[in-house]
């Protein structure tokens, strides 16, 4: 499939020149094309932020909801129509700040969706406040003395929640990022990809150079099935590992658990709205009890 199928044509993209978001958009298009996912069968779900504008720049079905709320919407969309490929995509602030509670509980629920988090370690759209992933010491107009706490570690938390797929990528390495995206989308169950994305306007510290210097890939031999090992690697500090940290292949998905697909595989919209006969029975049963 040609990735052009996802192009929006001549539109005005609201990102800053040089922003890491462009790279992610490109990588995602490429991934989808290589996986042969048709636009009509894909839904991009997002919250609000710069990252969250992504769905507007990729020709497919989109649900651009509220700040912090991409995961509940994405979970429901997938549950209601498992034939759709669902990708929830948003920023670090959106996902780990405002949306923190959904992050935890979506991981537990384990819908078969991919969650791509553009981690620029800052609130971009609102002009540069600290995000949960901002590094200690990061100065902003409201963190005047710099961030005082350690950054939120989404990888470690996801491992602690026994997430079914946990990975980190860097937009500066498109081929590798694409491979990680692919694995995530192909993975059955909730798949987190936290992807480092420089914000050229509001994060002058964590730029391309910084990410290059502060990351490295988990070695080939690394086995992502060992949770303790994954935790250990997730909490490394000097250099931040990239790659797939953890896979738990033994979890059932939310769609499997909801029960309505046990016998009938049809998505809900293809089923009858009127269920008057069993309803009449149910009503009649109230005559006796």
């Amino acid at each position, binding site marked *: 499939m040609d990735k052009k199928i996802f192009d929006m044509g001549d539109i005005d993209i609201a990102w800053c020149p040089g922003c890491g978001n462009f790279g992610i958009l490109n990588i995602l298009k490429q991934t989808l094309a290589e996986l042969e996912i048709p636009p009509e069968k894909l839904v991009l779900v997002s919250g609000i932020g710069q990252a969250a504008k992504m769905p507007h720049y990729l020709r497919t079905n989109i649900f651009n*909801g509220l700040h912090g709320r991409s995961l509940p919407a994405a979970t*429901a969309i997938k549950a209601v129509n498992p034939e759709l490929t669902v990708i929830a995509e948003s920023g670090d602030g959106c996902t780990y700040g405002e949306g923190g509670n959904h992050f935890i509980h979506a991981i537990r629920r384990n819908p078969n969706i991919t969650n791509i988090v553009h981690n620029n370690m800052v609130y971009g759209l609102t002009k540069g406040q600290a995000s949960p992933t901002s590094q200690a010491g990061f100065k902003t107009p409201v963190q005047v003395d710099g961030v005082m706490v350690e950054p939120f570690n989404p990888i470690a938390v996801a491992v602690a929640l026994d997430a079914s797929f946990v990975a980190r990528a860097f937009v500066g390495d498109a081929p590798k990022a694409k491979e990680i995206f692919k694995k995530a989308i192909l993975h059955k169950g909730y798949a987190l990809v936290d992807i480092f994305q420089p914000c050229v306007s509001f994060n002058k510290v964590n730029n391309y150079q910084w990410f290059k210097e502060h990351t490295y890939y988990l070695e080939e031999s690394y086995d992502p099935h060992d949770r303790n090992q994954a935790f250990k690697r997730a909490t490394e500090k000097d250099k931040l590992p990239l790659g797939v940290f953890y896979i738990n292949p033994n979890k059932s998905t939310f769609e499997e658990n909801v029960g*309505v697909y046990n016998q009938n595989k049809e998505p809900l919209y293809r089923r009858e709205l009127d269920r008057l006969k069993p309803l009449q029975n149910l009503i009649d049963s109230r005559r006796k009890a």
Partner: protein
Amino acid sequence: MNNSNINEMNDLSIVLCGEAGQGIQTVEQILTRVMKLSGFNVFATKEYMSRIRGGANSTEIRIASRRVSAFVDQIDILIPLSQGAIKHLEKRITPQTVILAEKSAFEKECLSDKCNIINIPFNQMATDLGSPIYANIIAIGAVSGLLGLDLQIINQFLQQRFSTKEEEVIRKNIEAAEKGYTIGVELSRSGKVRIGLPPSSQAKDEIILSGFEAVALGAIAGGCNFISSYPMSPSTGVWIFLTQHSKEFDIITEQTEDEISAINMAIGAWYAGARGMVTTSGGGFALMVEGLSLTGMLETPVVIHLGQRPGPATGLPTRTEQADLGFVLHAGHGEFPRIILTPGTMEDAFYLSQKAFDLADKFQVPVFILTDQYFLDSYYNLPSLNLSDIKNQSHVVRTNKEYKRYLMTENGISPRGIPGYGEGLVSVDSDEHDEEGHITEDLDLRTKMVDKRLKKLELIKEETIPPELIGNESYQTLIIGWGSTYHTIKEALDILGREDVSFLHFKQVYPLHPNTSDYFKKARKVIIVENNATSQLGGLIKLYLGFEIQDKILKYNGLPFSVEEILEKLKNFI
């Protein structure tokens, strides 16, 4: 002690009172079912504390020859199940109240001479049968005996109800019922307690429905196949009911981490082609307000059942109130239409809940079903529910390549596609957007989109459910009520028996039916009855009809109005 002749009217009010966890609910259930099977009309409602064990909770069961569906203060028979019960109901006990109880245990609670205790050694009898747990069944038997029911019906019912239990348990229960029955018959025969209450065969074959069941059944009738919620009294019953029947009806039901997730899931579900709802109470809905605003912008349908309870904040979690109307009407930032339905009867609850899904789907707006604890936790018998007129129409369209989610149309409604159905793409966006659903900064388009969204309200008005007039068309005085006060006001007016006083009940409070003003113009005097402190429907009427209602009957102590209370308060005005 004097003999008790309980109402020559066709109506008996039995109240059970005891601690949480003492099995009141079981007594209530068996008694109402047995009564109905014996040909009586029944009504039951309960008031309870926010605790799992202990405290003092009570259930009122009305048994009558004609239909009864409202709470009365009057207690004809009181069965106290635990210490403190008589004290708890002090204000409602009169010398006419027959208290069936172990005299020695309850005498000390009787501070006044009002206490007419008929001594029945329930506990002793139960212990003789092998365990104090049989006391409740003995009480059921006693009441049945008093009313002269057919013992066969009781035994059959117990047999069925305890069918999963051991033979021994069933036998003991039946024995207990019979023991009580004998006492009841004896009391009646001796003239100590005389109840003149003829059964009416009509009730026998009817169904019994509670408010939460009626809402849930209505939802099923409306094609609901997705419910995401977070537990919150008094709204959880609807969700439990749907969950317990989720397999028969293919319903996805999910307990979310919080109410924010619940509403966003429901919105996502509609987007992808389901008919979703949430059920919550005021505090939970407060957390859904941003999501509500999202439905306004996305033009996604959603159905919100909100069971009201007294606020602010946690308030009185297990009590009743009608104080979230103004909130629901104005909730959400920005401007967008909505629909608020306020059922007054079980039939209303069923048909309106069904209709809620259709309205939501058709107009792509949020639809509220606004009930309250009193309504949800009450039940009575009714003939049945007529499904023959129910035909759900899905308003979802198959998309083609040119599909635009927010196509500008004359009436403001854009055909709603869903992803994966057709060749088109479906884009929805919480930002102001263009016809395709993409974010825009075109400010002329902004104005058009606001107009498009608001325009739908005019269409909605055309389908508004008009208020129901109970009583004469040629009234002088008009009583106004909404939601759960329906039966209470109606019964009070029945008793009042005044040709010139009618009752206008609102089943849909927003938008108001275009003809509503006419009712007000005709009235010499208008009196509004609301279970809140600030007359919120009164405010809405003033806002939309310009009519100010001066005379108000308001109550906000957490309890519903009783028939007597309405009657008495009305007398002050007319």
